[in-house]
C-alpha cells in the first residue's frame, strides 16, 4: 500500500490471550533487572559478559557524580559504615566525601526471552543498615540526585534497589466502590 495505514501495524495481547504467545506474532517485552557485586556475578546470572563489563564501567564512571555527598568523613561513615567512604573532588576544587560503590544495578529489556540492545545501569551503594540503594533517576522522586548540592544526611534522593515497597497496616477496606452504577462505571 502506498499510503500509510491508519491502523495499528500489529496488535497482540500478553495475558488476556489464551493463544500461545509464539503464534500471536507479538513481541513479549519485559525487563530484567539485577543487582550485582561484581562483573563475574553478573556474567554468571546473565551469560552476557559484554553487557556486564559495560554496565560496570558505566556505573563506576557515574558513581562519583551521583553518589550522596557529605561535607565530612564522619557524616558519610555514619550512614555507610567505617572505611566505606572516600574523599572526592568535583573538579572545581570542592572536596566532599561519598560512599564507595559496592555494586551495580543493571536493567535490560527482554524480547522473547532474549536481551534487547541497550541497557541502563547505575552504581549501587550498601548503607550501614545493609539496604542497597541507587541514585534516583526518576523525575518524581525529587531533585538533588545528580551532583551540585552538598547535602548531609541520609540522602533522600537515593532509592532502594529491591524496590521493596512501603507497607502499612490496613485499618479498613471498602471505602471506595459503593456508588450506584448501572452495569459498570465506565462511560
Amino acid at each position, binding site marked *: *500500500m502506498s*499510503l500509510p*495505514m*491508519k*491502523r*495499528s*501495524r500489529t*496488535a*497482540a*495481547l*500478553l*495475558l*488476556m*490471550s*489464551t*493463544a500461545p504467545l509464539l503464534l500471536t506474532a*507479538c*513481541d513479549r*517485552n*519485559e*525487563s530484567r533487572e539485577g543487582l550485582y557485586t561484581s562483573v563475574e556475578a553478573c556474567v554468571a546470572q546473565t551469560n552476557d559478559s559484554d553487557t556486564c563489563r559495560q554496565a560496570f564501567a558505566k556505573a563506576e564512571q557515574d558513581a562519583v557524580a551521583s553518589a550522596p555527598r557529605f561535607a565530612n568523613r564522619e557524616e558519610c561513615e555514619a550512614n555507610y559504615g567505617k572505611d566505606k567512604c572516600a574523599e572526592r573532588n568535583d573538579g572545581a576544587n570542592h572536596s566532599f566525601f561519598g560512599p564507595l560503590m559496592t555494586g551495580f544495578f543493571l536493567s535490560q*529489556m527482554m524480547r522473547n526471552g532474549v536481551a534487547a540492545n541497550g541497557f541502563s545501569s547505575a552504581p549501587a551503594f550498601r548503607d550501614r543498615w545493609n539496604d542497597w540503594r541507587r541514585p534516583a*533517576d*526518576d*523525575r*518524581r522522586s525529587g531533585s538533588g540526585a545528580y551532583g551540585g548540592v552538598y547535602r548531609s544526611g541520609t540522602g533522600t534522593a537515593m532509592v532502594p534497589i529491591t*524496590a521493596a*515497597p*512501603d*507497607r*502499612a*497496616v*490496613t*485499618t*479498613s*477496606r*471498602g*471505602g*471506595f*466502590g*459503593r*456508588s*450506584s*452504577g*448501572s*452495569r*459498570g*462505571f*465506565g*462511560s
Partner: protein
Amino acid sequence: MRRIACAERPDWRAKAAACGFGFHTIDDAPYWDESAYYAFSLRGIEDDIEAPSEELHAMALDMVERIVGSERHMQQLAIPEPYRDWIAHSWRQRDPHLYGRLDFAYDGTGPAKLYELNYDTPTSLFEAAFFQWQWLEDQLARGVLPAGSDQFNSIQESLVEAFGTIARGIARPFHFAAVRDSAEDQGTVAYLRDCALQAGIDCGLLAIEDIGISADGRYTDLDDRVIGGLFKLYPLEDMFRESFGAYLPRAGLQLIEPPWKALLSNKGILPLLWEAHPGHPNLLPAEFDAGGALPRGWVRKPLHSREGANIAMRLPDGRELRTDGPYRDGPCIRQACHPLPAFDGHYPLVGSWVVGDRACGIGIREDDSLVTQDSARFVPHAIVEAARGVLIA
C-alpha cells in the same frame, strides 16, 4: 459514510473467547455487532474526525488552565471545595494522563458535533482498539472487505507508546482497579494492564472495593503495600463522595486518570468551551442550566451523567425524550439539540479516542434511539476508498 451489512465471521465468538472478550453479549443482548459496518472515506476521517479531535482536545486542555485559576469555574463545575487545590496542583505539576474519548454526532458530511468528553473513565476501549482491529484484518483476509480497506485505529499502538512514555513517572506499586462485579470494566482494565505490560511496566489488578486505608491515611493493596500509582476505572466524582475520598489530597497516591481530569469529564466543560469559542463548527451551543422548562431544541444533561443516563431532550418539534438513571440531583447543563443521524433506523455515535494527546482511532456505538445508552451496540468501521467505483459520501 455508509452503513453496510456484511457477513459475520463464523468464528468470532471463539475469537472473542480466546482473547478474553467476555462481554460481547451483555444480559443476553448483543453488544458486539458485526452484522454491519460503517464505511468512511479517508478524507472524512482525517478532516472531519481526526483533525477536529486534536483541536478540541487542545482547546479542552487550555480550558483546564483557565479553570484551575478560577474559583468561579470550580464552583460552576461543582468541584467539592476540599479537592480544588489538589486538582489545581495536579494540573500545575502536569500529572500524566493516558486517554480520553470525544463523542461526536457525524453523518459523513457536515462538521462533527461534540456531544461530550469522556475523559475520566472512558470504556468501549478493548472493542475499539483490539477486537475491531482483528475484525478488519480477518475480513480483509476473507475478502469480505474490499482489498486495501483500512481503519482509523492505531489505538493499541498509541496506548503502548503512551504507557512507555509515562512509565518512568508512574509511582510503584502500580495497580489497575475497577469494580469487582462489572465484566465490562474488569475487561477494560485487564486490557489496559496488558498494554502497560507490553510497555514494560510491572503492574497488578485490584478491585476498587479491596483498596484499604492505613492509620496514617495511605491507600493499601491486599498485601498491605502502600499503593504508589492507581489507574482507576471509577469516576473521580464518586471517589470524592465516598468515605475514603477525604484522604485523596494527602495520601501521596498518583492517580491515572489524574485529578485534573475531573474538570474535563464534567459536562460543565461544554458551556465553558462554547463561551470561549462561540460558533466553533464542532461545538454545539451550551449553557449552564438554571432550571425551569426545557425549551424546544435543547437537551438537559447532568454534569456527571454517564452512559446517557438522566438525559432530557426536547426536539425541535416539541417531542420530549427522557432517560432514567442514578443522576437525579445536582446541577445540569443545556446543550443545543443536534439529533444523531439515522442509518437504516440506527443511530451511530462516533467515539474518537485521544491517547497521549494524539487522536488515534474511533469506535462506533449504535443505538435504536436518539440517546445513546449502555444498551448501544458496538459496530466496527472501515475506511473504504471511493476509487473503487463506489461513491462514499
